[in-house]
Protein backbone atom coordinates (compact mmCIF):
# COMPACT_ATOMS: atom_id res chain seq x y z
CA UNK A 1 0.00 0.00 0.00
CA UNK A 2 2.78 2.44 1.00
CA UNK A 3 6.34 1.77 -0.15
CA UNK A 4 9.07 4.12 1.02
CA UNK A 5 12.40 3.50 -0.71
CA UNK A 6 15.72 5.18 0.13
CA UNK A 7 14.09 8.53 0.93
CA UNK A 8 16.44 11.37 1.86
CA UNK A 9 15.52 14.98 2.49
CA UNK A 10 17.49 18.12 3.21
CA UNK A 11 16.58 21.57 4.46
CA UNK A 12 19.35 23.46 2.73
CA UNK A 13 22.46 21.60 3.78
CA UNK A 14 20.85 20.07 6.86
CA UNK A 15 19.80 16.47 6.27
CA UNK A 16 16.50 15.64 7.99
CA UNK A 17 15.87 12.21 6.45
CA UNK A 18 18.62 9.73 5.65
CA UNK A 19 17.95 6.82 3.32
CA UNK A 20 14.62 5.78 4.85
CA UNK A 21 13.16 2.53 3.57
CA UNK A 22 10.03 0.77 4.83
CA UNK A 23 6.59 -0.26 3.72
CA UNK A 24 3.06 -0.54 5.02
CA UNK A 25 0.96 -3.38 3.64
CA UNK A 26 -2.78 -3.38 3.28
CA UNK A 27 -4.57 -3.56 6.65
CA UNK A 28 -1.28 -3.24 8.46
CA UNK A 29 -0.82 -0.88 11.41
CA UNK A 30 2.66 0.58 11.66
CA UNK A 31 3.68 2.79 14.57
CA UNK A 32 6.57 5.21 14.06
CA UNK A 33 8.29 6.39 17.22
CA UNK A 34 11.52 8.08 18.21
CA UNK A 35 12.85 11.13 20.03
CA UNK A 36 11.71 14.57 18.94
CA UNK A 37 13.59 15.88 15.93
CA UNK A 38 14.16 12.35 14.65
CA UNK A 39 12.26 13.07 11.44
CA UNK A 40 9.20 10.89 12.03
CA UNK A 41 6.67 13.67 11.33
CA UNK A 42 8.66 14.73 8.29
CA UNK A 43 8.67 11.16 6.95
CA UNK A 44 4.92 10.72 7.34
CA UNK A 45 4.31 14.08 5.64
CA UNK A 46 6.38 12.91 2.69
CA UNK A 47 3.90 10.08 2.15
CA UNK A 48 1.16 12.45 0.95
CA UNK A 49 3.64 14.98 -0.43
CA UNK A 50 2.94 17.67 2.14
CA UNK A 51 6.75 17.70 2.39
CA UNK A 52 8.89 17.31 -0.73
CA UNK A 53 11.95 15.08 -0.65
CA UNK A 54 15.06 15.18 -2.83
CA UNK A 55 16.02 11.53 -3.12
CA UNK A 56 14.31 8.15 -3.19
CA UNK A 57 10.75 7.23 -3.99
CA UNK A 58 7.43 6.76 -2.24
CA UNK A 59 4.72 4.74 -3.94
CA UNK A 60 1.20 4.89 -2.55
CA UNK A 61 -1.25 2.41 -4.01
CA UNK A 62 0.88 2.12 -7.14
CA UNK A 63 1.28 5.88 -7.63
CA UNK A 64 4.71 7.52 -7.30
CA UNK A 65 4.37 10.54 -5.01
CA UNK A 66 7.53 12.26 -6.27
CA UNK A 67 6.57 11.98 -9.95
CA UNK A 68 5.87 15.54 -11.19
CA UNK A 69 3.08 14.11 -13.35
CA UNK A 70 1.21 12.72 -10.35
CA UNK A 71 -2.09 14.43 -9.64
CA UNK A 72 -1.34 15.21 -6.00
CA UNK A 73 -4.79 16.49 -4.96
CA UNK A 74 -6.30 13.27 -6.33
CA UNK A 75 -3.77 11.15 -4.46
CA UNK A 76 -4.14 13.09 -1.20
CA UNK A 77 -7.92 12.77 -1.36
CA UNK A 78 -7.44 9.01 -0.98
CA UNK A 79 -4.96 9.26 1.89
CA UNK A 80 -6.53 10.37 5.17
CA UNK A 81 -4.39 12.50 7.44
CA UNK A 82 -4.84 13.47 11.08
CA UNK A 83 -2.69 16.28 12.50
CA UNK A 84 -1.26 16.99 15.91
CA UNK A 85 -3.26 20.22 16.17
CA UNK A 86 -6.47 18.81 14.66
CA UNK A 87 -6.65 21.54 12.01
CA UNK A 88 -10.41 21.60 11.76
CA UNK A 89 -11.56 24.66 9.84
CA UNK A 90 -12.59 27.08 12.62
CA UNK A 91 -14.93 29.16 10.45
CA UNK A 92 -17.16 26.21 9.57
CA UNK A 93 -19.58 24.13 11.62
CA UNK A 94 -18.65 20.54 12.40
CA UNK A 95 -21.10 19.41 9.71
CA UNK A 96 -19.47 21.62 7.09
CA UNK A 97 -16.01 20.48 8.17
CA UNK A 98 -17.12 16.93 7.49
CA UNK A 99 -18.88 17.68 4.22
CA UNK A 100 -16.84 20.27 2.35
CA UNK A 101 -14.10 18.09 0.90
CA UNK A 102 -16.58 15.39 -0.03
CA UNK A 103 -18.52 18.00 -1.99
CA UNK A 104 -15.66 19.98 -3.52
CA UNK A 105 -13.15 17.17 -4.10
CA UNK A 106 -15.21 14.02 -4.57
CA UNK A 107 -18.15 15.81 -6.18
CA UNK A 108 -20.75 14.32 -3.85
CA UNK A 109 -24.08 16.07 -3.41
CA UNK A 110 -24.51 18.10 -0.25
CA UNK A 111 -27.17 15.82 1.17
CA UNK A 112 -25.09 12.70 0.62
CA UNK A 113 -21.99 14.36 2.07
CA UNK A 114 -23.78 15.60 5.18
CA UNK A 115 -25.42 12.22 5.65
CA UNK A 116 -22.09 10.43 5.42
CA UNK A 117 -20.42 12.98 7.70
CA UNK A 118 -23.10 12.65 10.37
CA UNK A 119 -22.87 8.86 10.30
CA UNK A 120 -19.14 9.07 10.95
CA UNK A 121 -19.69 11.73 13.59
CA UNK A 122 -22.04 9.32 15.32
CA UNK A 123 -19.37 6.64 15.09
CA UNK A 124 -16.90 8.79 17.00
CA UNK A 125 -19.63 9.56 19.52
CA UNK A 126 -20.22 13.21 18.71
CA UNK A 127 -23.50 13.29 16.81
CA UNK A 128 -24.96 15.94 19.14
CA UNK A 129 -22.14 18.37 18.28
CA UNK A 130 -22.91 18.62 14.55
CA UNK A 131 -24.10 22.23 14.57
CA UNK A 132 -21.28 23.58 16.73
CA UNK A 133 -18.05 25.21 15.68
CA UNK A 134 -14.67 23.56 16.36
CA UNK A 135 -13.77 26.20 18.95
CA UNK A 136 -16.72 25.05 21.09
CA UNK A 137 -15.35 21.50 21.36
CA UNK A 138 -12.65 20.08 23.60
CA UNK A 139 -9.34 18.99 22.08
CA UNK A 140 -10.27 15.33 22.25
CA UNK A 141 -13.59 15.98 20.59
CA UNK A 142 -11.94 18.06 17.86
CA UNK A 143 -9.48 15.29 17.13
CA UNK A 144 -12.30 12.74 16.86
CA UNK A 145 -14.06 15.07 14.40
CA UNK A 146 -10.78 15.35 12.47
CA UNK A 147 -10.61 11.56 12.22
CA UNK A 148 -14.24 11.45 11.05
CA UNK A 149 -13.45 14.17 8.47
CA UNK A 150 -10.61 12.11 7.05
CA UNK A 151 -12.74 8.94 7.03
CA UNK A 152 -15.52 10.74 5.17
CA UNK A 153 -13.27 10.73 2.09
CA UNK A 154 -13.26 6.89 2.09
CA UNK A 155 -9.46 6.79 2.36
CA UNK A 156 -7.44 3.73 1.34
CA UNK A 157 -5.08 4.37 4.25
CA UNK A 158 -4.70 6.77 7.17
CA UNK A 159 -1.72 8.77 8.35
CA UNK A 160 -1.63 9.97 11.95
CA UNK A 161 0.92 12.63 12.88
CA UNK A 162 1.16 12.62 16.69
CA UNK A 163 -2.62 12.70 17.07
CA UNK A 164 -2.59 12.77 20.87
CA UNK A 165 0.46 14.96 21.56
CA UNK A 166 -1.52 18.19 21.88
CA UNK A 167 -4.19 16.68 24.10
CA UNK A 168 -4.75 16.89 27.84
CA UNK A 169 -4.06 13.46 29.37
CA UNK A 170 -7.71 12.72 30.15
CA UNK A 171 -8.63 13.14 26.49
CA UNK A 172 -6.01 10.88 25.00
CA UNK A 173 -7.97 7.69 25.47
CA UNK A 174 -11.11 8.82 23.71
CA UNK A 175 -8.98 9.45 20.60
CA UNK A 176 -6.97 6.25 20.95
CA UNK A 177 -10.22 4.26 21.32
CA UNK A 178 -11.35 5.52 17.91
CA UNK A 179 -7.96 4.61 16.41
CA UNK A 180 -8.02 1.12 17.96
CA UNK A 181 -11.49 0.57 16.55
CA UNK A 182 -10.25 1.65 13.12
CA UNK A 183 -7.32 -0.73 13.33
CA UNK A 184 -9.61 -3.61 14.25
CA UNK A 185 -11.72 -2.82 11.19
CA UNK A 186 -8.70 -3.42 8.99
CA UNK A 187 -7.75 0.16 8.11
CA UNK A 188 -4.20 0.53 6.82
CA UNK A 189 -2.54 2.93 9.26
CA UNK A 190 0.80 4.66 9.69
CA UNK A 191 0.93 6.40 13.06
CA UNK A 192 3.57 8.66 14.48
CA UNK A 193 2.93 8.39 18.21
CA UNK A 194 4.53 7.91 21.58
CA UNK A 195 1.55 5.95 22.86
CA UNK A 196 3.26 2.62 23.41
CA UNK A 197 0.08 1.17 24.91
CA UNK A 198 -1.59 1.79 21.57
CA UNK A 199 1.37 0.24 19.74
CA UNK A 200 1.22 -2.85 21.96
CA UNK A 201 -2.49 -3.23 21.42
CA UNK A 202 -2.84 -2.84 17.64
CA UNK A 203 0.47 -2.33 15.87
CA UNK A 204 1.81 -5.01 13.55
CA UNK A 205 5.16 -3.35 13.27
CA UNK A 206 7.06 -0.62 15.07
CA UNK A 207 9.56 1.68 13.37
CA UNK A 208 12.07 3.50 15.53
CA UNK A 209 13.71 6.60 14.07
CA UNK A 210 16.67 8.61 15.29
CA UNK A 211 18.41 11.56 13.63
CA UNK A 212 16.50 11.18 10.40
CA UNK A 213 17.19 7.49 9.92
CA UNK A 214 15.13 4.37 10.47
CA UNK A 215 17.13 2.58 13.16
CA UNK A 216 14.76 -0.25 13.86
CA UNK A 217 11.89 -1.72 11.85
CA UNK A 218 10.54 -4.78 13.59
CA UNK A 219 7.45 -6.78 14.36
CA UNK A 220 5.75 -5.50 17.51
CA UNK A 221 6.70 -8.55 19.58
CA UNK A 222 10.35 -8.27 18.63
CA UNK A 223 10.48 -4.54 19.18
CA UNK A 224 9.04 -4.64 22.68
CA UNK A 225 10.70 -7.95 23.56
CA UNK A 226 14.23 -7.34 22.40
CA UNK A 227 15.02 -4.19 20.45
CA UNK A 228 18.25 -4.78 18.55
CA UNK A 229 19.69 -1.29 18.60
CA UNK A 230 20.99 0.31 21.72
CA UNK A 231 19.32 3.61 20.93
CA UNK A 232 15.91 1.95 20.73
CA UNK A 233 16.58 0.17 24.01
CA UNK A 234 17.45 3.44 25.74
CA UNK A 235 14.41 5.17 24.22
CA UNK A 236 12.06 2.39 25.30
CA UNK A 237 13.52 2.29 28.79
CA UNK A 238 12.91 6.02 29.09
CA UNK A 239 9.34 6.15 27.89
CA UNK A 240 8.12 2.86 29.37
CA UNK A 241 9.23 3.76 32.87
CA UNK A 242 6.24 5.99 33.41
Amino acid sequence: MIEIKNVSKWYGSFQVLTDCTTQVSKSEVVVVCGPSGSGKSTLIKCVNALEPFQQGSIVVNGIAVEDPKTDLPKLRAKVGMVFQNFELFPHMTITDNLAIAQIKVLGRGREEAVDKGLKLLDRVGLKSQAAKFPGQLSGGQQQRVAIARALAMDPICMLFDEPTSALDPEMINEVLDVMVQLAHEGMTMMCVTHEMGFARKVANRVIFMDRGAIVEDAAKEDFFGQPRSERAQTFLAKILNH
Partner: protein
Amino acid sequence: MSDFDFSVIAANWAFLAEGLRYTLQVTVTAMLGGILIGTLLALMRLSSIVPLQWFAAGYVNVFRSVPLVQVILAFYLIIPLVLQMITGKSTPIGAANSAYFTFTIFEAAYYSEIMRSGIQSIPKGQIAAGYALGFTYGQTMRFVVLPQAFRNMLPVLLTQTIILFQDISLVYAIGATDFFGAADKITQRDLRPVEMYTTVAVVYFVICFTLSRLVKLLQSRIAIIR
Protein backbone atom coordinates in the same frame (compact mmCIF):
# COMPACT_ATOMS: atom_id res chain seq x y z
CA MET B 1 -21.91 87.87 8.32
CA SER B 2 -22.71 88.49 11.99
CA ASP B 3 -25.40 85.84 12.34
CA PHE B 4 -25.62 82.35 10.93
CA ASP B 5 -28.10 81.49 8.25
CA PHE B 6 -28.55 77.77 7.81
CA SER B 7 -31.28 78.19 5.21
CA VAL B 8 -28.49 77.87 2.65
CA ILE B 9 -28.35 74.16 3.52
CA ALA B 10 -32.06 73.56 3.02
CA ALA B 11 -32.09 75.57 -0.20
CA ASN B 12 -29.29 73.47 -1.70
CA TRP B 13 -30.07 70.12 -0.12
CA ALA B 14 -30.83 68.35 -3.40
CA PHE B 15 -27.43 69.33 -4.83
CA LEU B 16 -25.65 68.23 -1.63
CA ALA B 17 -27.54 64.93 -1.57
CA GLU B 18 -26.52 64.29 -5.15
CA GLY B 19 -22.88 64.84 -4.14
CA LEU B 20 -23.25 62.55 -1.15
CA ARG B 21 -24.74 59.85 -3.34
CA TYR B 22 -21.77 60.10 -5.70
CA THR B 23 -19.33 59.89 -2.76
CA LEU B 24 -21.06 56.76 -1.46
CA GLN B 25 -21.14 55.17 -4.92
CA VAL B 26 -17.42 55.69 -5.47
CA THR B 27 -16.72 54.41 -1.93
CA VAL B 28 -18.66 51.19 -2.43
CA THR B 29 -17.24 50.58 -5.91
CA ALA B 30 -13.66 51.20 -4.83
CA MET B 31 -14.13 49.07 -1.71
CA LEU B 32 -15.49 46.03 -3.56
CA GLY B 33 -13.16 46.37 -6.54
CA GLY B 34 -10.21 47.28 -4.34
CA ILE B 35 -10.66 44.28 -2.03
CA LEU B 36 -11.02 41.96 -5.04
CA ILE B 37 -7.91 43.27 -6.82
CA GLY B 38 -6.11 43.67 -3.49
CA THR B 39 -6.73 40.00 -2.63
CA LEU B 40 -5.36 38.92 -6.00
CA LEU B 41 -2.30 41.14 -5.45
CA ALA B 42 -1.80 39.64 -1.99
CA LEU B 43 -1.94 36.12 -3.43
CA MET B 44 0.60 37.12 -6.10
CA ARG B 45 2.88 38.65 -3.50
CA LEU B 46 2.76 35.47 -1.42
CA SER B 47 3.05 33.10 -4.39
CA SER B 48 6.23 31.23 -5.18
CA ILE B 49 6.34 32.66 -8.71
CA VAL B 50 8.94 35.42 -8.63
CA PRO B 51 7.64 37.67 -11.47
CA LEU B 52 4.22 37.72 -9.79
CA GLN B 53 5.84 38.67 -6.48
CA TRP B 54 7.68 41.51 -8.16
CA PHE B 55 4.64 42.77 -9.98
CA ALA B 56 2.55 42.86 -6.80
CA ALA B 57 5.34 44.42 -4.74
CA GLY B 58 5.92 47.06 -7.42
CA TYR B 59 2.22 47.86 -7.67
CA VAL B 60 1.83 48.29 -3.93
CA ASN B 61 5.00 50.32 -3.49
CA VAL B 62 4.23 52.68 -6.37
CA PHE B 63 0.72 53.50 -5.24
CA ARG B 64 1.67 53.84 -1.62
CA SER B 65 4.47 56.25 -2.44
CA VAL B 66 2.49 58.72 -4.55
CA PRO B 67 0.03 61.25 -3.09
CA LEU B 68 -3.56 60.32 -3.88
CA VAL B 69 -4.31 63.74 -5.38
CA GLN B 70 -1.58 63.22 -7.90
CA VAL B 71 -2.87 59.79 -8.85
CA ILE B 72 -6.36 61.24 -9.29
CA LEU B 73 -5.00 63.93 -11.59
CA ALA B 74 -2.73 61.59 -13.51
CA PHE B 75 -5.44 59.00 -14.18
CA TYR B 76 -7.89 61.72 -15.18
CA LEU B 77 -5.42 62.83 -17.84
CA ILE B 78 -4.04 59.43 -18.82
CA ILE B 79 -7.17 57.25 -19.11
CA PRO B 80 -8.64 59.17 -22.09
CA LEU B 81 -5.25 58.95 -23.83
CA VAL B 82 -5.02 55.21 -23.28
CA LEU B 83 -8.60 54.72 -24.44
CA GLN B 84 -7.83 56.76 -27.52
CA MET B 85 -4.85 54.54 -28.26
CA ILE B 86 -7.01 51.45 -27.96
CA THR B 87 -10.16 52.60 -29.73
CA GLY B 88 -8.52 55.05 -32.09
CA LYS B 89 -10.97 57.81 -31.37
CA SER B 90 -11.27 60.47 -28.72
CA THR B 91 -13.26 59.12 -25.77
CA PRO B 92 -13.54 61.62 -22.94
CA ILE B 93 -14.84 59.75 -19.88
CA GLY B 94 -15.27 62.71 -17.56
CA ALA B 95 -13.94 63.47 -14.11
CA ALA B 96 -16.78 61.73 -12.29
CA ASN B 97 -16.22 58.43 -14.10
CA SER B 98 -12.45 58.45 -13.92
CA ALA B 99 -12.65 58.63 -10.11
CA TYR B 100 -14.35 55.21 -9.91
CA PHE B 101 -11.38 53.69 -11.71
CA THR B 102 -8.70 55.67 -9.87
CA PHE B 103 -9.95 54.90 -6.38
CA THR B 104 -10.39 51.20 -7.13
CA ILE B 105 -6.84 50.89 -8.46
CA PHE B 106 -5.37 53.05 -5.70
CA GLU B 107 -7.18 51.44 -2.78
CA ALA B 108 -6.28 47.96 -4.09
CA ALA B 109 -2.70 48.66 -2.99
CA TYR B 110 -3.82 49.31 0.60
CA TYR B 111 -6.36 46.49 0.72
CA SER B 112 -3.73 44.09 -0.63
CA GLU B 113 -1.41 44.80 2.29
CA ILE B 114 -4.29 44.17 4.70
CA MET B 115 -5.20 40.90 2.98
CA ARG B 116 -1.57 39.87 2.89
CA SER B 117 -1.20 40.11 6.65
CA GLY B 118 -4.59 38.39 6.98
CA ILE B 119 -3.44 35.47 4.84
CA GLN B 120 -0.15 35.24 6.71
CA SER B 121 -2.01 35.10 10.02
CA ILE B 122 -3.56 31.73 9.09
CA PRO B 123 -1.53 28.86 10.59
CA LYS B 124 0.40 26.70 8.11
CA GLY B 125 -1.37 23.65 9.48
CA GLN B 126 -4.65 24.91 8.06
CA ILE B 127 -3.16 24.96 4.57
CA ALA B 128 -1.68 21.49 5.09
CA ALA B 129 -5.11 20.26 6.22
CA GLY B 130 -6.67 21.68 3.07
CA TYR B 131 -4.12 19.98 0.85
CA ALA B 132 -4.40 16.72 2.82
CA LEU B 133 -8.12 16.59 2.06
CA GLY B 134 -7.37 16.81 -1.66
CA PHE B 135 -7.99 20.52 -2.19
CA THR B 136 -5.99 22.23 -4.93
CA TYR B 137 -4.12 25.47 -4.17
CA GLY B 138 -7.12 27.46 -5.39
CA GLN B 139 -9.60 25.48 -3.31
CA THR B 140 -7.41 25.72 -0.23
CA MET B 141 -7.30 29.49 -0.63
CA ARG B 142 -10.99 29.83 -1.42
CA PHE B 143 -12.48 27.53 1.21
CA VAL B 144 -9.89 27.55 3.98
CA VAL B 145 -7.51 30.51 3.97
CA LEU B 146 -9.34 33.51 2.48
CA PRO B 147 -12.59 33.18 4.47
CA GLN B 148 -10.57 33.15 7.70
CA ALA B 149 -8.20 35.90 6.56
CA PHE B 150 -11.16 38.04 5.52
CA ARG B 151 -12.91 37.59 8.85
CA ASN B 152 -9.76 38.31 10.82
CA MET B 153 -9.10 41.45 8.79
CA LEU B 154 -12.66 42.76 8.47
CA PRO B 155 -12.25 45.52 11.08
CA VAL B 156 -9.10 46.79 9.35
CA LEU B 157 -10.69 46.52 5.89
CA LEU B 158 -13.66 48.58 7.05
CA THR B 159 -11.46 51.15 8.78
CA GLN B 160 -9.59 51.55 5.49
CA THR B 161 -12.97 52.00 3.81
CA ILE B 162 -13.85 54.83 6.20
CA ILE B 163 -10.60 56.56 5.22
CA LEU B 164 -11.47 55.95 1.57
CA PHE B 165 -14.89 57.54 2.11
CA GLN B 166 -13.22 60.70 3.40
CA ASP B 167 -10.55 60.68 0.69
CA ILE B 168 -13.17 60.83 -2.05
CA SER B 169 -13.28 64.58 -1.30
CA LEU B 170 -9.97 64.89 -3.16
CA VAL B 171 -11.83 64.63 -6.48
CA TYR B 172 -12.23 68.39 -6.16
CA ALA B 173 -8.82 68.45 -7.87
CA ILE B 174 -10.41 67.32 -11.13
CA GLY B 175 -13.65 69.23 -10.60
CA ALA B 176 -15.92 66.25 -9.92
CA THR B 177 -18.83 66.98 -7.62
CA ASP B 178 -18.76 64.72 -4.60
CA PHE B 179 -20.35 65.68 -1.26
CA PHE B 180 -17.53 68.01 -0.29
CA GLY B 181 -17.23 69.32 -3.84
CA ALA B 182 -20.93 70.17 -3.90
CA ALA B 183 -20.62 72.07 -0.62
CA ASP B 184 -17.58 73.86 -1.95
CA LYS B 185 -19.35 74.95 -5.13
CA ILE B 186 -22.36 76.29 -3.22
CA THR B 187 -20.04 78.16 -0.88
CA GLN B 188 -18.31 79.89 -3.76
CA ARG B 189 -21.69 81.06 -5.04
CA ASP B 190 -23.63 81.83 -1.83
CA LEU B 191 -20.71 82.89 0.37
CA ARG B 192 -21.88 81.00 3.47
CA PRO B 193 -18.69 79.05 4.29
CA VAL B 194 -19.24 78.64 8.05
CA GLU B 195 -22.72 77.18 7.77
CA MET B 196 -21.83 75.00 4.80
CA TYR B 197 -18.53 73.56 6.05
CA THR B 198 -19.91 72.99 9.55
CA THR B 199 -22.80 71.02 8.13
CA VAL B 200 -20.48 69.03 5.89
CA ALA B 201 -18.21 68.23 8.82
CA VAL B 202 -21.14 67.09 10.94
CA VAL B 203 -22.43 64.81 8.17
CA TYR B 204 -18.96 63.29 7.65
CA PHE B 205 -18.62 62.78 11.39
CA VAL B 206 -22.01 61.13 11.80
CA ILE B 207 -21.44 58.75 8.89
CA CYS B 208 -17.89 57.80 9.88
CA PHE B 209 -18.71 57.43 13.55
CA THR B 210 -21.73 55.25 12.78
CA LEU B 211 -19.60 53.11 10.49
CA SER B 212 -16.89 52.61 13.08
CA ARG B 213 -19.53 51.60 15.65
CA LEU B 214 -20.87 49.15 13.07
CA VAL B 215 -17.36 47.74 12.62
CA LYS B 216 -17.23 46.97 16.34
CA LEU B 217 -20.64 45.34 16.30
CA LEU B 218 -19.83 43.29 13.22
CA GLN B 219 -16.53 42.24 14.74
CA SER B 220 -18.21 40.54 17.67
CA ARG B 221 -20.86 39.02 15.41
CA ILE B 222 -18.68 37.29 12.86
CA ALA B 223 -15.58 36.63 14.93
CA ILE B 224 -14.38 33.05 14.61
CA ILE B 225 -14.88 31.07 17.79
CA ARG B 226 -11.54 29.80 18.96
